[in-house]
């Protein structure tokens, strides 16, 4: 009913000259409206910075042992010291360094895992939707199978069979998560292909590749980016879980999951060995979930209000 259209009434408001203060408050309104997205992006950016610039942000290496400074609590506790802001572990390794370097593993695994899953899934889903018929059934049968299984159990099973290595973990996550992308892509493509604007393009003489490139793909981006964001969050969890039972990357690699697995043994005496990596996981995952929620809302231009 409140159709915002270019009508006479709306035009008159455009002519109001905007002052610097107006623009500032406009920016403020934009930030407030998109606050979940702003917080999500902020969190994501800090994690990326920690991972990429770990060398510059901390003087320690994650594997440097210093037995004289072992089992130090975080700096805000009585026995802590600003030299090791988040404390040290049982071998005297700096917790902050391990968490920053660990971000590389967690982000790397989840990011590349999600990308592989997305590429595989989009191709499968798009082919299923576009070719249809028997091919649709042949592709979607295993997809539906994987989606109806107890996922964690299967991933644990596969990881234990294949053995722990960074590449294996990425590949496992990529392949086992592709079905969800396939299902979403297939659904979206079918929806878009039925849409009146695709029908209109075909009636104007567009071939299938043009429809795919100019109509289907652009409208797929929104849902896919949203899904990738949620999947990154999920894969950070899966990695931590696998690491926790010793099935993720090799124990020498400082991943958040491995840190949890080691810290668990000392939980009653040195709880920060467990709390710190857990908080890192929670922080990152929170950011990706906020980002995903926001992307879901804004990816549709029809629900996106114009800046006025």
């Amino acid at each position, binding site marked *: 009913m409140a159709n915002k259209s270019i009508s006479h009434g709306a035009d008159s408001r455009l002519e109001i000259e905007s002052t610097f203060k107006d623009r500032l408050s406009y920016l403020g309104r934009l930030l407030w409206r998109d606050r979940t997205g702003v917080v999500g992006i902020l969190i994501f950016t800090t994690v990326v910075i920690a991972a990429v610039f770990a060398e510059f942000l901390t003087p320690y290496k994650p594997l440097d042992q210093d037995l004289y400074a072992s089992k130090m609590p975080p700096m805000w506790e009585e026995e802590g010291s600003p030299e090791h802001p988040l404390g040290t572990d049982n071998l005297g390794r700096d917790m902050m360094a391990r968490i920053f370097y660990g971000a590389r593993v967690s982000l790397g695994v989840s990011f590349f895992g999600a990308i592989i899953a997305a590429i595989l899934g989009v191709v499968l889903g798009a082919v299923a939707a576009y070719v249809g018929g028997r091919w649709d059934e042949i592709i979607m049968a295993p997809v539906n*199978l994987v989606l109806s*299984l*107890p*996922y964690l*159990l*299967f991933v644990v099973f596969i990881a234990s069979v294949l053995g722990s290595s960074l590449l294996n973990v990425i590949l496992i996550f990529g392949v086992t998560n592709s079905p969800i992308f396939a299902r979403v892509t297939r659904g979206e493509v079918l929806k878009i292909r039925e849409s009146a604007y695709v029908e209109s393009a075909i009636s104007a003489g567009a071939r299938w590749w043009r429809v795919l490139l100019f109509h289907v793909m652009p409208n797929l981006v929104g849902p896919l980016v949203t899904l990738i964001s949620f999947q990154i969050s999920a894969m950070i969890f899966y990695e*931590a879980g696998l690491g926790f039972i010793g099935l993720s990357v090799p124990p020498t690699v400082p991943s958040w999951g491995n840190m949890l697995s080691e810290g668990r043994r000392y939980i009653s005496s040195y709880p920060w060995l467990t709390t710190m990596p857990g908080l890192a996981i929670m922080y990152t*995952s*929170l950011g990706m979930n906020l980002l995903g929620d926001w992307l879901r809302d804004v990816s549709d231009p029809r629900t996106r209000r114009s800046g006025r």
Partner: protein
Amino acid sequence: MLKYSFRKVGQSLLLAMGVLILAFAMVRMTGDPASLMMSRNASAEEREAFREVMGFNRPVLVQFGDWITHVFMGDFGDSLHFREPALPLVLQRLPATIRLAATGLAFAILIGIPLGLIAGFRANSLVDFFGRLIALLGQSIPNFWLGLILILIFAQRLGWFPVFGADKPESVVLPAFVLSLPVMGELLRLTRSAALEVRNEDFVRTAFSKGLHRYAIYIQHVLPNVAISLVSVIGVEFGYMLGGSIYIETVFAWPGMGQLVGQALGWRDFPLVQTIVVFTSLVVLGLNLLTDLIYALIDPRIRHGK
């Protein structure tokens, strides 16, 4: 209805077949299941003998046929560690896992759905805010880590609950709560959006226009429609909990199937792991089928449809 049920049963049987193929293939994914199951320092002769015993040197299709036949007769193979049939070992652990998952599901339903309903009816209220916060945290906190933290606080520091095991009745509280948290968040979110959606349906306005009492409208018109959209979710979530209990059971030393998986992995007892994976998957498929059938029973559009 009959046609629908038959189709669902057929689909489930096909999926079950898929599970068996997948589980069979996974053990053979590396090409040599023998070296997978034996310790690294086993000699070449020992390996050869093991292959002979397990039948790994026969053609793959023959192995598969053999395995399938046995599975249909309830024989999932022998555990390497216990040297006895694997299925009874799993069945022994099943009640504990079901107890844990069912308690967790009860938590999730009893807290998630009412909060979701209130959040949906009173969007942007305080309850809504906290509800969404719970949902967001449920999504963002790794639950096995939360388990560790809760053990630290409530079991070790405060001593309110047992640290681990399943000896006392209250033992189930912490692990079930932790297991339920992500599901609770998901149920809350879905209930909220379903309630919001149903509340804005034309037929609810019709109900108001008939002058019905507010609670009569919520209970007779809104709730059943929300419930229909939740039934299928609850089935899926219960399956998730059965499979997801592996970490929680490990953390809390809960004597269920999840803990057994963790132990079996340590023993490299792959026949046992395989049995648990196949068995749990079949249970999950069965649950999904059950939900689909319940769904058909309560939704007249399917019950009286073609």
